[in-house]
């Protein structure tokens, strides 16, 4: 009923009606989709959050003598150099070799955009045409020929929310998750999030002009992992970094996880017909997602609850008899600013809509990885049967068990065979010196244990975290069925890497 060219003509004449996505539900409910589509020309959408699949291509220009860069570091953050001589790609999650998780590729991008200088180190093997082997210099964004923000996956339509039912704090890409489900972190901006307003990709396609990092950018294609059927659509975007603003591109450090880049994106949705008007009237109560339990470090995590964005944004969600605080990883303040900024641009006749040159796929699914060799479970590697001692045993009997079996620690069980502790040779030596005799007081009761179905990767991480060498494997009744050591796991890793 309306074309993009007609809307652009209205923008040119200063007559276009532009509203924010959060204003649209009321307009559509009052006027109905037909009238709403007649009245409103453009709906602005916005989001501002951590988008890990982000990065920038930089062309440094040639040095004299020239170098074919083989390895490069920007402020000690490695940039990918497997391209032509002086093209680099710096990715948001690459960590600094010096500062670790406090500084990464996302921060390099922010520093460049903010006009700050960045140290460059590079090396090469040297060729007849590119003889230089080492290079050290300092650059600013003005010094590079091209700087293209190039993000293969941004702008997820929605995200799973995260909680943690285990007894220890988890540090994840979804932020810090407190033990015993004390917080829920969520991401995405719900009803104002761009892809939620055009879930059938009627207007967003290759070539759609968008707000990207404070400048005008473009949708290149669907993003990686694009899964529109399940409500998890994504887009790949690009734009000129030199025009962008550090207000909308911010480096971030997620505690004990790593770095990323906060990216500000806004997509204008042209209201071409009543169907699109209806799509843009979506509201937070209609957008649902799952709260997943991140204490299960597997590809498929258990769902704790299915909730709406309305509940997540309210600040509290009840799960069972518990009320849990929610916290957002995306900035609603800046997302609203982005929607307003786009309206200002259009009103100032600085931003026009584009006709997409290719529609994005609506039927792709996100498949799991094809793994030639699957990781092993500890159940397959554990030693069994396990030597154990009864908690009522005398200390000299326990010593004898350790000596006879040439081991330095042994799990302690009760009369029902349930694990109640672990005791080491050192514990016994210490107890003898201190004249203590009861095994239950000498042993460690808080045992780090594992289950047979767990992958060696999870268990190896657990051993590392607690700085221990072995863990008993128990069944659901806490009965000891095996034991696994770090060297068992390392042996298995060597097998997998062959």
């Amino acid at each position, binding site marked *: 009923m309306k074309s993009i060219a007609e809307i652009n003509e209205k923008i040119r004449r200063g007559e276009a009606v532009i509203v924010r996505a959060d204003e649209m539900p009321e307009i559509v409910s009052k006027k109905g989709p037909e009238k709403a589509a007649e009245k409103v020309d453009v709906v602005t959408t916005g989001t*501002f*959050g*951590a988008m890990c699949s982000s990065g920038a291509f930089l062309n440094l220009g040639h040095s004299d003598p020239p170098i074919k860069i083989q390895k490069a570091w920007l402020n000690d953050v490695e940039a990918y150099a497997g391209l032509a001589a002086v093209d680099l790609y710096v990715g948001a999650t690459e960590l600094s070799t010096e500062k670790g998780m406090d500084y990464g590729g996302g921060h390099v991008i922010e520093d460049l955009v903010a006009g700050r200088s960045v140290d460059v180190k590079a090396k090469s093997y040297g060729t007849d045409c590119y003889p230089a082997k080492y290079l050290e210099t300092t650059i600013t964004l003005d010094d590079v020929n091209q700087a293209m923000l190039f993000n293969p996956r941004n702008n997820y339509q929605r995200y799973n929310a995260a909680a943690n039912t285990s007894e220890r704090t988890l540090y994840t890409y979804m*932020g*810090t998750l*407190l033990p015993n489900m004390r*917080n*829920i*972190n969520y991401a995405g901006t719900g009803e104002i999030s761009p892809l939620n307003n055009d879930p059938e990709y009627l207007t967003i396609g290759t070539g759609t002009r968008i707000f990207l990092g404070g400048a005008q950018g473009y949708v290149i294609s669907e993003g990686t992992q694009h899964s529109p059927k399940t409500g998890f659509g994504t887009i790949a975007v690009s734009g000129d970094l030199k025009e962008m603003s550090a207000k909308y591109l*911010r*480096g*971030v*450090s*997620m*505690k004990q996880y790593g770095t*990323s880049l*906060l990216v500000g994106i806004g997509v204008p949705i042209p209201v071409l017909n009543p169907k699109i008007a209806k799509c843009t009237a979506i509201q937070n109560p209609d957008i649902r997602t799952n709260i997943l339990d991140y204490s299960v470090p597997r590809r498929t995590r258990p769902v704790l609850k299915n909730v709406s964005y309305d509940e997540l944004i309210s*600040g509290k969600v009840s799960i069972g008899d518990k009320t849990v*605080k*929610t*916290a*957002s*990883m*995306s*900035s*609603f*303040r*800046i997302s*609203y600013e982005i929607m307003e900024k786009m309206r200002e641009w259009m009103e100032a006749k600085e931003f026009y809509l584009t006709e997409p040159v290719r529609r994005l796929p609506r039927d792709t699914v996100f498949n799991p990885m094809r793994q030639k060799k699957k990781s092993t479970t500890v159940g397959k590697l554990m030693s069994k049967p396990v030597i154990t001692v009864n908690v009522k045993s005398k200390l000299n009997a326990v010593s004898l068990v350790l000596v006879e079996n040439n081991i330095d620690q042994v799990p302690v069980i009760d009369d029902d065979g349930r694990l109640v502790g672990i005791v080491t040779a050192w514990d016994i030596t210490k107890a003898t010196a201190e004249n203590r005799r009861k095994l239950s007081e000498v042993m460690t009761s808080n045992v780090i244990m594992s289950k047979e179905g767990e992958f060696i990767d999870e268990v190896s991480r657990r051993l590392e975290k607690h700085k221990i060498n072995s863990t008993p494997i128990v069944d659901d009744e806490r009965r000891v069925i095996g034991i696994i050591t770090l060297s068992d796991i390392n042996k298995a890793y060597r097998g997998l890497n062959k």
Partner: protein
Amino acid sequence: MKYVIKYSPENTKEPVLADAILSTKVKVNILTARLDSEEGVMILEVLGDSKDARKIVSHLRKHGLLVEKLDGNVLKDDDCCVDCGLCVGVCPTDAIIMHDKLMELDNRKCILCRACVEVCPVKALSIREGI
């Protein structure tokens, strides 16, 4: 009312706080304490009116402790903060809330646990120097 109390090596050996409680009969709640033989920081909540607070504070000061009202000790860099709200979820005392898309910090409720400082992805939060 909450107070930050700082011990120096000289007064870590004396039961200054216990003396203060016994002699003033003012009830206190210890919210956090980080103490070793060298020095320490404690956060006290005084249960009572402002007169009680004055009594116990002056006792503690007389015995060489550094006492400061716990107010304005978590600093927020407004230019740096993006108002995401990740800090809200880890705050144990609801000293941080989201209000109309903005993060709001109520230093009176803060117990200086540093959880917010640690999780802030843009490092917009810090504890005032000397605390």
